[in-house]
């Protein structure tokens, strides 16, 4: 019924910063390491910023072609968190 699983864990992320090609955002997460597994991101589905008080959090909804992942980058702590994944 609800395929989204909450994870909320700090993860290793490799991100690519592009010049200006992608209008959604110039920062693209490319790879996530979670539970000793590497997830290669194939698609940035949606980017949006949000606020936690005055802290800006950048939210990236991405896909590896099979499952969807929600990644959040906290601009105060410079930490990437894997917040949730959608299992099919």
């Amino acid at each position, binding site marked *: *019924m*609800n*395929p*989204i699983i909450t994870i909320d864990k700090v993860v290793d992320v490799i991100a690519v910063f592009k010049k200006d090609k992608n*209008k*959604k955002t110039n920062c693209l997460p490319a790879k996530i390491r979670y539970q000793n597994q590497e997830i290669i991101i194939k*698609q940035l*589905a*949606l980017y*949006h*910023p*949000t*606020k*936690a*008080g*005055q802290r800006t959090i950048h*939210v990236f*909804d991405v*896909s590896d072609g*099979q*499952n*969807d992942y*929600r990644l959040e980058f906290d601009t105060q702590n410079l930490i990437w968190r894997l917040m949730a994944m*959608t299992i*099919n």
Partner: protein
Amino acid sequence: MKNLLLNKELPQIMHIDLNSAFAMIEQQAHPSLRHKAIGVTNRISKHCCIIAASYEAKNLGIKVGMRLDEALLITPNFIILETDPAKYHYVYQKLMSIMKSYSPSVKMKSIDEGIIDFHDSLKYVHHQSLESIGQEIKEKLKQEIGDWITVNIGIGTNQFLAKVAASLHKPDGMDKIDHKNLIKTYQQLKLTDLTGIASHYEARLNAAGIYTPLDFLQASADTLNRLVFRSVNGENWYQRLRGFEVDNFTTKLGHIGRQWVLNKPTNQNNLLLPSLQFLCQTTGKKLRFKNVDARGIMIWLRFNNGENWYQRKMYKVSFFSDHDIYQKALYLFNQRPNNMIVQTMGITCYQLTKSARNQISLLDQVNRDHWLTTAIDTINEKYGDFKIFSAGSLNSTKLIKQKIPFGGTEYFSLLLQHN
């Protein structure tokens, strides 16, 4: 056909409507959920209400307003997600910024639809036709948000016709209604297809011998005034149907409030009061966000037997602090019939006046209230909502989720200062 006195000016109002907005945005964010029947709700529970459904779900017969258990009976594969206001706010901002790049005269009607008035700006937009601007807006939304995003665009001589045009070919349509195709368009529609005509008005129109939009168009202003609407509304409809603008006004803020459907209906004060206190805090936040004070307060309840109850009171002195609102609400709440099981509770503050809080009061207590409230608001704005709040509402802050504000966008920024 007699001369219908239609508005023959060039259509310069564009209505833009995101298709099944929340469901479509979720499908944009979750590629694996595309082409699937999905819905969005504020808080998932067995009987929760679907506030947006994907086109795939709508094609199966799942409608907005349906309960989750009803949708699951139609298709057990139905997927339900909880709302994510920040995501929708981002899309709303993108949509608004694209719209404002064409004209300064942009009015957002709600979080998923808005109007561009090109009356003063069309000649500056590269002499493009409105159809070509509409096409450009569709492409920009796909580029800047995502390729799953589609909008319906309607073009007309007034807001009403633009909205009707936007609903003709869903999803991803674009239509124009002007004096040349107005009658032909009305011939294809039912009365309830017209924005603003629901079953109640339809019955009134039927009683006056009006059964189709074309009958409606041909009815005289006098008939509409006297027999159908019995007010100036009749004259407004007469003008509106012909493409003349009668809806370009701003509504005055009349009341501010919140409501809450309880997870478990109860008559126990220890379970009800935390929720009431929480509703008072969020209502207080809205008052202060709009920089107004209230003099009137109303508490209303719906019981599990379907009965409604309300109590209201006006005060000589205006109020704005969470504490004051709660004290006044509690006084009314305690007058309810005690044995009744409460299913829904709501609070409304009315008789709103512009706040005079920037002026120091002669009464020390008023100043202390103001300073304390300001200090708490400042801390919560900096560190996120409900970092400081009344201990009495401790459980409710986790339980009651902020809802998506339908029909208006004025509280979006407030809603997003969360966590």
